[in-house]
């Protein structure tokens, strides 16, 4: 099978697979923090193995964890939820995303999706038989989704509006003003909102994250996901959640039971420790990402590569249109020739063949080396033109 035939998620996995073959690879693609899970969380898991390995866990998760999640979304997102009926624990943010889409969208239903966006939304929507209606955003606007464009995209088949903030891969943050306007449109046009808050702790400069479910009239029409993967460096534990109004969450719970039954009890006990224990490791990681972001942006500036300012998240979406090449081909060359893994924009959106997503989830020395190698690859590409 030709490598160029892979698209979307399959393209990313093809690149990941090749990257494994290189001992000296520098990974600036996958959203997997380089930090290991904080020690007190691992210790809690070990304790749970001794004392709680055979605890029954319902499909929606242990009540103690749901209580911790309810406290967290109140504290961080100002969303009030009842842990008994309005929280479902999931196998990571990915399952949460899949459940939200399945809970709301039926075959033929349209979801308004600001583009570019995380490719799995399109995959999940395809599974559900739904239709993606794209609203384009642009680097020169720092990938701001304009509420007027959202309004214009609505049809009589529109059922939901996807709001990922900070956005993946574009790293834009929906401003409080725009968020209020988006919610107003959703109320006026009777749309459900799927909110993805997974990067809510990683917002830079003076930008501000606001959850739509925290606004008046927001909660009853909004499902909100989050996970421990990014904030606590717990990608391998597969632990996330969906919160929302009890009536919709009953559906999410049934879907969770149908798809995977429950989340690993040991991960759940680790999750309780993460959410209720010391938070200094989260602060430390957030500070590291702030420094690394600056480092990457400075390097891109030095190379003359344009980008939409990453207002949040753990990556930058860089414009490589100057190469005249498809981002899939550029990513392939950078990987094969320089052993640096970056994700092609085309994997996120067919209209983003001019972009690369680069994460800053490596130690600074690694990032510097990766950017140097990327510079060489770009120079070689340009020399051939």
């Amino acid at each position, binding site marked *: 099978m030709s490598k160029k035939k892979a698209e979307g998620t399959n393209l990313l996995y093809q690149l990941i697979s090749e990257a494994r073959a290189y001992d000296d690879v520098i990974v600036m693609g996958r959203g997997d923090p380089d930090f290991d899970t904080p020690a007190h969380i691992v210790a809690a898991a070990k304790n749970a193995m001794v004392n709680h*390995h055979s605890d029954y866990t319902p499909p929606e998760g242990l009540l103690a964890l749901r209580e911790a999640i309810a406290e967290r979304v109140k504290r961080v997102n100002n969303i009030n939820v009842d842990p008994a009926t309005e929280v479902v624990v999931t196998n990571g943010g990915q399952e949460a995303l899949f459940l939200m889409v399945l809970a709301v969208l039926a075959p033929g239903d349209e979801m308004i999706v600001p583009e570019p966006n995380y490719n799995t939304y399109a995959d999940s929507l395809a599974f559900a038989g739904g239709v993606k209606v794209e609203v384009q955003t642009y680097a020169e606007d720092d990938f701001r989704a304009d509420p007027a464009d959202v309004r214009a995209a609505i049809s009589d088949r529109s059922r939901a509006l996807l709001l990922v903030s900070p956005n993946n891969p574009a790293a834009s943050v929906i401003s409080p003003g725009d968020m209020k306007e988006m919610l107003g449109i959703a109320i006026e046009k009777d749309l459900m909102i799927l909110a993805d808050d997974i990067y809510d702790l990683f917002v830079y400069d003076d930008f501000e994250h606001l959850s739509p479910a925290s606004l008046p009239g927001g909660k009853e029409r909004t499902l909100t996901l989050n996970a421990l993967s990014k904030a606590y460096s717990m990608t*391998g534990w597969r632990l996330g959640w969906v919160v929302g109004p009890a009536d919709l969450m009953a559906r999410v719970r049934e879907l969770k039971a149908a798809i995977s039954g429950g989340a690993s009890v040991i991960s759940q006990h680790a999750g309780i420790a993460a959410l209720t224990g010391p938070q200094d490791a989260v602060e430390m990681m957030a500070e590291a990402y702030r420094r690394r972001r600056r480092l990457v942006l400075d390097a891109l500036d030095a190379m003359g590569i344009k980008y939409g300012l990453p207002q949040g998240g753990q990556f930058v979406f860089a414009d490589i249109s100057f190469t005249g090449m498809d981002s899939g081909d550029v990513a392939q060359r950078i990987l094969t020739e320089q052993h640096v893994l970056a994700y092609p924009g085309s994997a996120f959106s067919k209209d983003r063949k001019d972009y690369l997503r680069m994460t800053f989830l490596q130690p600074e020395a690694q990032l510097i080396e990766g950017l140097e190698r990327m510079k060489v690859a770009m120079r070689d590409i340009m020399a051939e033109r």
Partner: protein
Amino acid sequence: MAAKTKADTLARHQANTALKATLPPQIGRHDKDLSADGMISPLDERIIAAAADALETGQTHYVDVPGIAPLRAALADYLTSSHGAHYEAENIIVTAGVQESRFLSIQMIGAAYDSIGIPAVAHPGVQKALGVRARTVVALAADAKRGFLPSPAAIVDALENGCRLLYLESPSRLSGAAYTDEDLSIIRAALREHEAMAIWDQGLAPWVDGTFSSLASFEEAPSLAATIGEAWPGMGLASWFIGYIAAPADQIPAMQSQKQIMAICTSTAAQYAALEAANLFEDARAQRLAQLSRLRSDIIDAADALNLEVIAGDALNIVALRASEAAAAKLRSAGFDYADGASFGAPAVIRLSVNRSTTNALAALR
């Protein structure tokens, strides 16, 4: 307020009875809970050490979508050594439990077929998996005389009528009854003749004392059967949710891609724990089988004394009984939970886990 859109969503949900099927718990919730699919078992300290060591040495990140390589190899080895299967590590996907195995196999293999033959009596997780995205179902008749396994004749009939994908449980998740070699010869021949395929749930196979005949043991199984189950049950990992799919090579990409879409990978702690469980399983299983055999024998004696009909079964970890509503009510009032056969498709049957509390449950019926 979210008016019509939300109301429509909720109405759709309300109408989806398959999605609302009640799943048995993965493990007993209290001392008198006899409804669980799995059993409470001690967790060997070597398993704890292996999982903890993995976590402490940084195995806290994403791993390969289909599972860590040594676990996939261990599962392939297990299926070969225990069931004479012919799968390679590349045929294995590690799942977040057997329900995810059901969902992925039914939905993704099923997507390539017009219909799927499902036993009229099957684990409610099958109905739930179908409830997420409806498929055309051909019901395979199943009755108590055969332990609720569809007869080979019923299976052949479905294949002759155009059904090209079957979902089969052996042992039955309700009765524990398992297909014989003779049954499987007929089923296998029919699958070959019609170029059909089977999803084969043999999750309860470890609890069959003696010979268990597996569809996976046929030489061509890697092309005609996707085998699913729990990874090393009875090792204390029931609540860790770890299972597997062993499937034909051409079916792996679609399931792997869907696994990525809905979970990225399976919990690393669970995978490393399962890897160590693989080393300890055979000894632990032998001990557990001896215990279960004694307990189940006592339970059947007690049932006979009460003139309760025991549905024929081969798996020692469960026992299915015909039970009137009055008898079921008596169990409930005594505080016992049981798996209701109605949720499997067999009303007036109850399934009890075999453990030290089961004889007490029957005593409550006196």
